[in-house]
């Protein structure tokens, strides 16, 4: 173990450092660390007391979770930073969100072949709930959003795009700039968009519209319907809703192909 030097020379050196700091009105870092560890103990026992009474609320009430998160934000702590943090260990906050993270990743992966890695928050919410099963706790969209924010740190391309009052959740590292985003927002109402609509609404040149649409096609986020009456339509599977489609089972798909 590293021993701080003893002996007259070391003592003198320390006295000099202390004097220097006192001059500047600074406190020694070592003393600060001791102070911090004391405060931490107090805090830990306060939290333990709270947890003994209210641990259940975290899992049961999404309102409570929101309040709790806001409290932590005001303090400047992130209760979800580590599974080893107090919050996780004593309140079980971590497990709730980390497990949700796993479920989100699995849903996005399972649907990627269909929507290219883009899904509405509503659909994600539905499917996560379905996957959790009857006896699991309900989760709100706020919960999903917080879990997704944490997933970003793993470089998986997770992000959220504001669209029509809610969000599209992106789960692949496709480059989507402002142009792509605004076209997605335009397509939100009907689930598809055409070059003319882009030109009319956004006042873009044809080249710019085509460039953006080609990129979405390439990334697998859009499908081209070139047989549509009038001009080609670019459909976004991510925006298909229950009202305009339903999932096709493999058996049904086989029946449909000649």
């Amino acid at each position, binding site marked *: *173990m*590293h021993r701080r030097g003893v002996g007259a020379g070391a003592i003198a050196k320390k006295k000099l*450092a202390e004097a220097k700091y006192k001059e500047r009105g600074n406190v*020694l*870092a070592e003393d*600060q*660390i001791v*102070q*911090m*560890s004391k*405060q*931490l103990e107090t*805090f830990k026992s*306060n*939290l333990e007391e*709270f947890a003994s*009474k*209210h641990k259940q609320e975290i899992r049961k*009430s999404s*309102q*409570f979770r929101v309040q*709790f998160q806001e*409290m*932590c934000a005001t*303090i400047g*702590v*992130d*209760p*979800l*930073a*580590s599974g*080893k*943090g*107090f*919050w996780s260990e004593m309140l079980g906050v*971590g*497990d709730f969100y*980390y*497990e949700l*993270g*796993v479920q989100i*990743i*699995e849903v996005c992966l399972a649907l990627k072949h269909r929507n290219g890695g883009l899904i509405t928050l*509503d659909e994600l*919410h539905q499917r996560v709930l*379905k996957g959790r099963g*009857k006896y699991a706790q*309900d*989760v709100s*969209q706020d919960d999903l959003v917080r879990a997704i924010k*944490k997933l*970003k*740190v*793993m470089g998986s*391309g997770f992000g959220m795009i504001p669209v029509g009052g809610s969000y599209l959740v992106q789960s*692949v590292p496709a480059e989507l700039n402002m142009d792509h985003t605004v076209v997605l927002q335009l397509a939100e109402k009907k689930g598809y968009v055409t070059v003319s609509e882009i030109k009319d609404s956004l006042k873009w040149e044809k080249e710019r519209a085509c460039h953006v649409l*080609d990129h979405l096609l*390439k990334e697998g986020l859009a499908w081209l319907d070139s047989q549509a009456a009038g001009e080609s339509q670019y459909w976004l599977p991510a925006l298909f809703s*229950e*009202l305009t489609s339903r999932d096709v089972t493999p058996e049904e798909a086989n029946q449909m192909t000649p």
Partner: protein
Amino acid sequence: MDRFSWSNGLLEINETLVIQQRGVRLYDGDDKAKLDVGVVLLSTHRLIWRDVKNHECCIAMPLSQILFFEEQAAGIGKSAKIVIHLHPTLTNKEPGPYQHSKYSFIKLSFKEHGQIEFYRRLTEEMTQKRWENTPVSQPIPTGTGSQAGRTRAVGIVGIERKIEEKRKETDKNISEAFEDLSKLMVKVKNAKEMVELSRSIANKIKDKQGDITEDETIRFKSYLLSMGIANPVTRETHGSGTHYHLQLAKQLGDMLQAPLEERGGMMALTEVYCLVNRARGMELLSPEDLVNACKMFESLKLPLRLRVFDSGVMVVQLQSHSEEEMIASALDSVSDKGSLTAEEFAKLLGLSVLLSKERLLLAEKMGHLCRDDSVEGLRFYPNLF
């Protein structure tokens, strides 16, 4: 249930869908309605329900029919419900599944959850009453008006009071928790001081002021970890990791050997996250824990590496699978087949599409492959230039 009318389920011009939820069964008062489980949809104007198997079976009710509503918690073997109390039926109502009902309330039973979000949205819509501002092409009968007010029976008042009491009781439990939370917050104002304190310490460590030992730094970093305070202190040896991450890194080193071998020596970090947490079941790792642990592979001389591609994708790969090997094998496969897309390459190797794409991009970066980029997809050819 006699407030509902048959509907085609299509939205009107000014009507917008707010939220939908599947797995919902309707109740006529306390009795299960003679309908199967279906999808409930909330629009700005109506409450719509549709049978999941038979899309023709669709009913709707204007939101103006709703008097008030509340949540009913789930119980053992019982799903959570929203109980909706209704104004009396209108005389000009279109026919629906029920001619009469002895109840003036219905329930939505959420067999696949979603009640929290649905309740929230319903509250919003009933507060905003958007149907009053945006009339739709087909007049939807409204339930408000002095006539409805006059016929409000005494019975309903009694029910309302009982429900209000029950609500207060539930609220009490929740609000006690919130009270304690605010009390905690006051105590935890000290936590704010602690955060500032920790920043001051971190700066000193960075500027190498004072005589802070390695041990003290490690101790300090573990305090930060416990509190969830962002850690600005990095050291050459272990980055921003702590003892905890060190141990984790060793565990991962053992645990990931076999899965990595099975997957061609490389796994996306999100895959690792799911694999590890599914195996643990409890005391799960946070995404940050995983990243910090993986960053330590090199310094611990474990045979794994964390690698970040240009796209930002992070993977864990086996040391034994060197870069040259991967590129050479990519070139072989492409030359063999003449050309390959990421999807084809993925099928060939049994890798995920994401990772096979990264390998092809890497080989391209090194000059061994070149691309043909079209709307049909990205295809790679051996570089003959």
